[in-house]
């Protein structure tokens, strides 16, 4: 009978294999099968952790290689005109994220102040993060996922906006403690 540790080891390695590239899955399954021959449960967990790392590295290397190959195959696209178009789409993504942020800050902050009294708001000061960070970042994430397939450059611009906002908030919190 399998212990909880061994079951976890099998599940962990199995999950990593399922999420990895097809070429890495054979190696992953090879390591997964070896788990049946390891006596100690903790040793099997160590084996699974090492195996998961090896599969992930192998899979990432394949992804990186195919990405580089794809870039080389499509290097004709990197003309001045195309780069200009890409940059314009990227900038539009950044502009959209800035607009969404402004709407969120003005709109939601007004709504909150209308609904909640100033005294209550003092106790619930964390609500201030909603229009500044939580809501915009959530919208950015949804928008980027929705646009990723068909308007990737614009989605990248939105992601850039989201990252910039996140970094800004972190720096602000760190410096105003």
């Amino acid at each position, binding site marked *: 009978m399998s212990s909880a540790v061994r079951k976890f080891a099998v599940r962990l390695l199995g999950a990593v294999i399922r999420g990895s590239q097809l070429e890495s899955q*054979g190696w992953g399954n*090879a*390591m997964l099968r*070896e788990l049946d021959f390891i006596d100690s449960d903790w040793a099997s967990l*160590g084996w699974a952790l090492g195996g998961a790392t090896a599969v992930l590295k192998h899979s990432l290397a394949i992804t990186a290689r195919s990405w580089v190959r794809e870039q080389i195959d499509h290097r004709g696209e990197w003309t001045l005109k195309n780069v200009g178009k890409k940059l314009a789409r990227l900038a539009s993504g950044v502009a959209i994220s800035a607009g969404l942020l402004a709407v969120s800050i003005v709109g939601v902050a007004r709504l909150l102040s209308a609904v909640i009294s100033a005294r209550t708001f003092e106790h619930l000061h964390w609500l201030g993060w909603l229009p500044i960070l939580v809501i915009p970042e959530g919208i950015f994430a949804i928008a980027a996922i929705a646009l990723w397939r068909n308007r990737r450059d614009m989605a990248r611009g939105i992601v850039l906006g989201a990252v910039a906002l996140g970094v800004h908030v972190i720096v602000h919190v760190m410096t105003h403690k």
Partner: protein
Amino acid sequence: MVPRLRLSPQTLQVLDAFLEAPKDWKYGYDISRDTDLKSGTLYPILMRLADRKLLETSWETTEPGKPPRHLYRLTASGLRFAREHVVHDVAGSRVLDLRGAKS
């Protein structure tokens, strides 16, 4: 011509383990026990050796209803490569790389 392979002490250990019985197929866990290498170190080495056609792999189905088990063996060029790079000292325990890498 074998594509460039980083000959770390661990790679030499694995090659040495295969040289003990060059014609036999080996299981991953057995190689791990022979070399004291963890799966996270051993399998990337096996993957690199297989990529460079120095290692051949096979699936063995022994028990019905159970998934097959992966087996490994050096290819003819792998055997030549291992013999070129792995030698033992007089005591037969230390693995040396003829080109200078040392375990």
